[in-house]
């Protein structure tokens, strides 16, 4: 495959970046998108140029490290996959592909396509946990009966890998899908109920503090989420926040 890549290049957080064109040849349809970028970088390094910086880690769709806004969509045109699981067969020979970093005030660019998503960590620190007695008499989680329906929905919410595709896709750079998944995975379980009210208030406060936008229910996040996190979680967070606020 022969392609034209239009990639956002930015030296560091301070300098302004720009889109740079890179023609590339010899791409196999079975390559993953990140492998295609590896090929590009090899060529750049051989020429003595600065390779394109991009985030990646497990390359099997579970770590949430890879990002990229590809041809106008987070993780590219495929559904239910991360960029590392996106294959070049999704594109045609001769295509022009735009590759940009996830854009949000709360995700500042560090270099090229690498963004600082530590705002998610700070939201998580604000309440995305349960307090457990670890003094030696910790109760096994499985001793508490939980109905299957709630356990399943909690698990579904917990499959969020925190990649930030929801923020990148949202026209408002809102982090509600991420935060609501983290709120929901605990709110649905008895262990999480104890701190449920403080959790939702603190996490939403932190989310607002980080400069994410407001949700306007376009539903883009749900469509682009590689893990299929449902908008039901945002509705649940809205309920949780309301009941915590009026208490």
């Amino acid at each position: 495959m022969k392609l034209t890549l239009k990639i956002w290049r930015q030296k560091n957080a301070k300098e302004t970046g720009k889109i740079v064109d890179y023609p590339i040849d010899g791409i196999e349809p079975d390559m993953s998108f990140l492998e295609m970028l590896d090929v590009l970088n090899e060529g750049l390094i051989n020429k003595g140029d600065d390779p394109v910086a991009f985030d990646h880690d497990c390359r099997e769709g579970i770590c949430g490290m890879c990002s990229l806004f590809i041809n106008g969509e987070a993780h590219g045109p495929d559904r239910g996959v991360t960029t590392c699981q996106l294959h070049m067969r999704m594109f045609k020979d001769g295509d022009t592909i735009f590759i940009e970093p996830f854009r949000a005030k709360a995700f500042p660019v560090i270099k090229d396509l690498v963004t600082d998503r530590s705002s998610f960590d700070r939201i998580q620190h604000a309440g995305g946990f349960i307090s457990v007695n670890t003094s030696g008499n910790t109760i096994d989680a499985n001793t508490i009966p939980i109905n299957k329906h709630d356990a399943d929905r909690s698990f579904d919410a917990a499959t969020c890998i925190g990649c930030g595709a929801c923020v990148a896709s949202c026209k408002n750079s809102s982090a509600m899908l991420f935060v609501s998944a983290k709120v929901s995975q605990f709110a649905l379980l008895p262990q999480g109920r104890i701190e449920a009210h403080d959790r939702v208030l603190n996490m939403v406060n932190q989310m607002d503090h980080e400069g994410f936008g407001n949700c306007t229910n376009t539903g883009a996040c749900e469509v682009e989420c590689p893990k299929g996190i449902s908008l039901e979680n945002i509705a649940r967070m809205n309920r949780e926040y309301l009941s915590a606020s009026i208490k």
Partner: protein
Amino acid sequence: MAKSALLKSSLAKKYWMALTGLFLCLFLIGHLAGNLQLLVPDNALNFNKYALFMTTNPAVKILSYVTYISILFHSIDGAVLVFQNQAARPIKYARNNAAANSPWASRNMGILGTVILIFIVTHMVTFWAPMHFDKKMPLQTTTIDVQGQKQEFYLTTDGGYIPKAQVDQNAIIIKDRTDFYDGNAKVKIKEGYKDLYKITIAFFKDPKYGLIATILYVISMAILAFHLSHGFGSAFQSLGANNPKYNGLIRGFGKWFAILVPLLFAIIPLYIHFILKA
């Protein structure tokens, strides 16, 4: 200790958008029910009675203040949301395929809402302001055959008639826009109806501007339809009502509401301009 902010937080803004939006949906139904009377032939009196009721009934007055506040709050809150949301992404994408993941209306609520706000202001200047403030607002009259002679009478709220001739000769005086007094302006005799019907028909039948007014009205209703197509269902989501069991019902109702209400509103000026005989 956790803080809550029922006005300032991102979620609270959604609650207020949803609550005011849903209240304005209810207002639309009430307003539409009244307007539809314009489609009934020879119904000027009933329409003017409705207009009188809407401007004087205490319960309706309270509701109307809630409506004004809702419109204001919905607009201001909406504007704040738009500015905050734009600030949340200082550098835009070079290529953004938003159509792949979200409906057009959902991404343009601010623009749609602004057009609707402009429509509301124009609409209030045209109909609401004369009804409330215009000192020269006409009162409803009717022509009756009296012994072979056509005479014009003012209709009064108690179902009576006052000959227009007597008013013209100052035997009866009109004060405070609607009140009929005796010639010495001392005793209030009766009260007339402000003729909103006449103003409405004249507005859409105006030989110069009637057609453009009708077209702009219909376009505004189309924009309202798009605004509602996202807003109605979105309000439920914002208030936390998202359950697969009922989502079909809410979305289905929202879809029909978004089509039917603006459509029925739009039919009225079309009927007045193109079908109704002056």
